[in-house]
């Protein structure tokens, strides 16, 4: 599809450069011979405008051996024309269009070898080649030459009547002379104008005939110059235009502006953007920029008189630049027309308006319109238009397959609300009936503060260690009790399953005010976040953005969490983070549903994850089943489907978890993912040795190894996690990660409730930072003073 886009853009590109052109264009090779004959193709010769075709100079140049080929060609043409009636053959229609175009070229007094003409023909030819079917290729090649001949013949005979009409939509700010331009074209006052007030207040159609072509101008009310409410008013106008255009699409769009009003700080950019937004960026593909008030004294920036051409060029570039910005595409280039409607404008002997550079603008105007329409028609006939996307290419990004796979391997589907509890229950199940160690401990006398102070240091330590030991045992006991209670509860629950859950009839109690993040403002607006305690399952929290707006709280997103046991063995949960603003929309959510069979041996889970990435959304669906194959072994099977930017990725995985004794847990998984012409394999191994007092004390050592292979490239990753409790009040957490590219990370976390001294590191950091800041500030002020 990209080819078409380039084609279209290049098309307007070539049209825009109506100045003498480079010879390197591929087109010239075809017409080299002819070019030798026409000397200055860019400048249209002044031709008297008349209703009957009168151009004679061009006839000579048609060099085709008409006499021999005419008859068979005509019959061929006719037959294909007939065919088109039956099969709606677009190629035939284009042939017809070509003939019409060539006739008009003649009629408007343009040389058939005018660069623009040739280019249009070349593009039409190219388009036909792109779309032509194999069998029609030959006819396409022949058609263009034949069309020229046919056009000449038809035009000289005047039969059949030229059936060509133009619908021209005229856009522009108020007072630039939209209606005046229309009047100039028709040579009579068909539309009301006023030099000082907006004269057109609604969409009007002005019809007439110019050079035998039916021309319909759609005159629109002018856009308002930038002001407070202009955007709204302009949008209103544009919307009405949009409705109008929908019913009767125009062939050509003219965007008018005053040449003398364009400066480097072009203030109409918002307007251009609004036009692209409302009417669609594609509107610019058919647009001709029209500069009114063109016969001005050109003055350069320094008051020096500039060359008229370069002055116009400069102004054009400004407008074109902003159009590029408005559609965010720099490829588009619009042809430019200069127009002068003032009655006192210079005229040539034939009474036509002449621009300061000697150009008669009216025929040029018609000619460009015709060219644009012909190309537009070709596009729509060949259905190119749908495939053109202007603006930045949206879906060029592709998802990284290894990333998707590693996420897929890591994502575990939850099977219920109380997963962690279940695991602990299982661990403790065996020794539930055993008597608690805690109960067997001898009684201990708790010391008061003063008596504790009196103890010797070693005694203090012993006393505290003893307390800690007892605490561990006590917590174990509590856990066991909890576990027992849960088991009993479950039995009870099963008995009276049908009993409805009681609605808690709590009175509305306002929750305490929220504490806000630090700020130098005088107060945190806690009243915005005040609420009543509710017993619903939705947990909603704000997401704080530390890089938010100054003088604002910075709660920009919303975090939502919910979990519900829908039925006894059906469980659903969802978490998500969403933020929706005027321009931005981000979402990241995970939903999960699980069904456990009655024997609680097997669990089926489904998950849908949604994540926004730029403008796009990443959807991923995941389904899996977890099967408890035998006592200490669980097998997990999963499939995933991820969609991103119109591409789909499919994956599958197998996971096995084995408990060896009470303290060792092994997990192995392997997965495979495919999509967008790529495949990735991966797997991981995880071993975890838990401490003696697990789950009361969370000591453990874990080892992970993962391997991912994409495009014959292997990435290995290994990691070590240890969680130790060397002392009664200290926890150390060490994490080491490495991959086979020798990149990695070491993380050490030290956490203590007694050794407060480690916090002194922060004092050191702050001290260093202050020193550094002082240096920077003194440098800054010195620089500033020097500047002064």
């Amino acid at each position, binding site marked *: 599809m990209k080819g078409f886009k380039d084609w279209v853009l290049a098309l307007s590109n070539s049209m825009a450069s109506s100045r003498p052109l480079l010879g390197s264009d591929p087109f010239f090779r075809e017409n080299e011979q002819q070019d030798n004959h026409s000397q200055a193709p860019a400048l249209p010769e002044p031709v008297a405008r008349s209703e009957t075709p009168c151009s004679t100079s061009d006839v000579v140049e048609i060099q085709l051996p008409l006499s021999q080929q005419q008859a068979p060609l005509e019959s061929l043409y006719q037959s294909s024309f007939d065919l088109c009636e039956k099969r709606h053959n677009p190629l035939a229609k284009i042939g017809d269009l070509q003939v019409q175009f060539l006739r008009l070229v003649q009629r408007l007094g343009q040389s058939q070898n005018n660069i623009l003409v040739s280019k249009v023909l070349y593009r039409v030819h190219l388009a036909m080649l792109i779309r032509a079917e194999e069998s029609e290729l030959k006819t396409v090649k022949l058609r263009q030459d034949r069309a020229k001949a046919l056009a000449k013949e038809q035009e000289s005979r005047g039969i059949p009547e030229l059936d060509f009409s133009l619908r021209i939509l005229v856009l522009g700010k108020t007072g630039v002379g939209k209606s005046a331009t229309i009047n100039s074209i028709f040579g009579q006052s068909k539309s009301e104008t006023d030099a000082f007030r907006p004269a057109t207040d609604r969409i009007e159609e002005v019809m007439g005939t110019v050079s035998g072509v039916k021309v319909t101008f759609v005159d629109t009310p002018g856009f308002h110059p930038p002001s407070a409410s202009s955007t709204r008013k302009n949008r209103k106008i544009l919307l009405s235009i949009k409705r109008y255009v929908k019913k009767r699409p125009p062939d050509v769009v003219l965007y008018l502006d005053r040449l003398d009003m364009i400066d480097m700080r072009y203030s109409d950019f918002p307007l251009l953007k609004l036009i692209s937004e409302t009417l669609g960026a594609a509107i610019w593909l058919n647009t001709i920029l029209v500069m009114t008030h063109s016969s001005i004294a050109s003055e350069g920036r320094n008051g020096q008189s500039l060359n008229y051409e370069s002055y116009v060029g400069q102004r054009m570039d400004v407008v074109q630049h902003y159009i590029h910005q408005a559609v965010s595409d720099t490829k588009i280039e619009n042809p430019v027309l200069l127009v002068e409607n003032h009655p006192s404008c210079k005229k040539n002997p034939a009474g036509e308006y002449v621009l300061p550079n000697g150009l008669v603008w009216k025929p040029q105007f018609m000619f460009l319109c015709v060219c644009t329409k012909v190309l537009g028609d070709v596009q729509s006939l060949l259905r190119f238009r749908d495939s053109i996307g202007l603006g930045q290419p949206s879906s060029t990004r592709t998802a990284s397959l290894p990333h998707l796979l590693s996420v897929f391997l890591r994502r575990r589907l939850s099977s219920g609300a109380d997963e962690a509890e279940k695991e602990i229950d299982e661990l403790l199940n065996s020794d539930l009936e055993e008597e608690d160690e805690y109960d067997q401990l001898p009684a201990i006398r708790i010391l008061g503060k003063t008596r504790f102070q009196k103890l010797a240091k070693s005694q203090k330590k012993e006393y505290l260690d003893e307390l800690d030991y007892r605490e561990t045992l006590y917590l174990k006991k509590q856990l066991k009790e909890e576990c027992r209670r849960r088991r009993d509860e479950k039995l009870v629950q099963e008995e009276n399953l049908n009993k409805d859950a009681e609605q808690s009839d709590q009175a509305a109690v306002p929750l305490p005010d929220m504490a806000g993040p630090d700020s130098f403002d*005088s107060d945190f607006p806690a009243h915005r976040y005040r609420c009543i305690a509710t017993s619903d399952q939705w947990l909603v929290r704000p997401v704080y953005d530390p890089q938010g707006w*100054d003088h604002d709280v910075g709660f920009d997103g919303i975090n939502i969490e919910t979990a519900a046991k829908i039925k006894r063995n059906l469980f659903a949960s969802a978490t998500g983070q969403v933020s929706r603003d005027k321009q931005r929309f981000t979402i990241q959510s995970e939903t999960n549903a699980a069904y456990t069979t009655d024997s609680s041996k097997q669990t089926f889970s489904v998950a849908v994850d949604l994540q926004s990435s730029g403008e796009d959304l990443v959807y991923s669906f995941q389904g899996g089943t977890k099967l408890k194959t035998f006592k200490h072994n669980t097998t997990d099977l999963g499939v995933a489907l991820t969609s991103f930017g119109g591409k789909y990725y499919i994956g599958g995985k197998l996971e096995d978890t084995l408990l060896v004794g009470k303290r060792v847990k092994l997990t192995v998984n392997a997965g495979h993912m495919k999509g967008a012409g790529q495949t990735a394999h991966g797997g991981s191994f995880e071993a975890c040795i838990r401490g003696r007092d697990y789950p009361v004390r969370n000591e453990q050592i874990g080892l992970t190894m993962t391997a991912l292979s994409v495009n014959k490239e292997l990435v290995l990753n290994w990691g070590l996690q240890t969680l130790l409790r060397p002392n009664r009040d200290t926890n150390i957490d060490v994490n080491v990660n490495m991959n086979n590219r020798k990149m990695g990370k070491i993380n050490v976390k030290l956490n203590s409730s007694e050794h407060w001294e480690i916090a002194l590191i922060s004092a050191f950091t702050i001290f260093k930072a202050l020193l550094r800041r002082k240096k920077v500030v003194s440098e800054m002020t010195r620089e500033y003073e020097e500047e002064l």
Partner: protein
Amino acid sequence: MGTSVVVVEAEVVGMVIFGGICFLWLFQRPSRTRNSHRIGILTDYKRRIEKARPCLLPGTVQREMMLMLRDERRVGARLLRKIGDRVNRWYQENGYAFAQVMNFGSLNSKEVVFEVVEGDITKLVIQFHDKLGNVVEGNTQVPIVHREIPKQLRPGHVLNMKAASQAVKNIHSLGLFSNIEIYPRLDEKNEGGVIVEIKLTEADQKSAEVSTEWSIVPGRGGYPSLASFQPGGSVAFEHRNICGLNRSLMGSVTTSNLLSPEDDLSFKFDYVHPYLDGVYNPRNRIFKMSFFNNSKLSPVFTGGPSCEEAVPPISVDRVGLKANITENFTRQSKFTYGLVLEEITTRDENSQISANGLRILPSGGISVDGPPTTLSGTGIDRVAFLQANITRDNTKFVNGAIVGERTIFQVDQGLGIGSKFPLFNRHQLTLTRFIQLKHVEEGSGRPQPPVLVLHGHYGGCVGDLPSYDAFVLGGPYSVRGYTMGELGAARNILELGAEVRIPVKNTQVYAFAEHGNDLGSSKDVKGNPTAVYRRVGHGSSYGLGVKLGQVRAEYAVDHNGGTGALFLRFGERY
């Protein structure tokens, strides 16, 4: 002691109080039953009743029971039980967990008496427990806990579980305890009395955490090595409940290099000192001092409609000290005053100090001659000023809808200390009225009333005004439907808003209209950032929304551009 009497009469006779027992009298037509020989017993009984205090049972319930009596000809056991159940039910519903009908009796042939034990609190005990459940000496001073306990839970009042749960909430909000339990138990010494035990487990007072991080990169010879020996990471510490008086010191530092920190350093130190006037003084003033930094985007330097991309963001880094005293008048009304010393640095996207606003030129280059960002002109400002905020807020929830009024007055007064000796006064007044449009009965499950909200906000500034402190128009709390600062930045602003909230099922839908105006004062901000960035300076918006719990989903139309957009926000607008 400990019981009360509920007395209900068919043709209201009176009510008698005695001890903790309430008696409920029920008047009955004279029946033909023999009552002469009971007079002797009754005198004793009468004396008891006379000593009882009136029960808590409200008149409506008493009248309801009298109606029950009137309908019946005879007082049978069934009827008495029925009335007793009704009494019990009322007490349970209203949180009097220890209230119970103890006995039925009759004073004379006309009156039936119900003896009710309501559960008077005879003693309040505050205990500290260690993690093992042993009673220990606490570190926290008892008055701190005591002042959080509602009056209804003090001895002499009837135990109400609502008050108890309120006490748990209040104590919990101190943040000192990991476990709070309230155990009411019957007082064996006093009939009908209840002893309330509050068991508290103190949380760890101190904690410190250091987290460090080194990255490994391929080093010389292809062997993995550390990128730098200096670790990045974070340090956080906390010392709560200093001296057992709930004073706390907290701090955290995060940076990519702990030993020689760079611009990414972010830190925060807080010291909070409550009960400035003493623990026993009911006046509670809290002193708070914090030393911290933050970095945020300035809404002053943003582009107007459709030229957002043309204005590169300017971030405002603030570092400084803030010390203030807060006095709470009621739960919601308060007065805060204090001193702020801060240093402001304005930076561009690449965190280079930028003294002027930026603009992307059509050529793609960046012009750096926008409005000055700071007062000093260097990109770094230092300033000291006094700050005060007084909030009068008597809004309350009526079945979940906010009703009442709120007035906030804020003022910042420059002291002439700092770069260019800034002398300024910046003041803001916010008035919000929540007008209930229909009277509704309060109670859980009842519908919310429709509410009309009127809101006005005036901000003004006199004296030196750096652009980062100019008032901005537009944004979720200024004029909805616009992005922050989309309408402009000005010296004086006025915002007006109105919202109608209508209950639909359990939630509210609302319609609103808002307007913000710079009062022509945009040009008084140095460099006129409003005009430079093509902003209008004023604008209105209107829209519709729905409240989903704490989340607001609203569709707002910006009147300047005529476009609408959907917004999701957390919390209330007003």
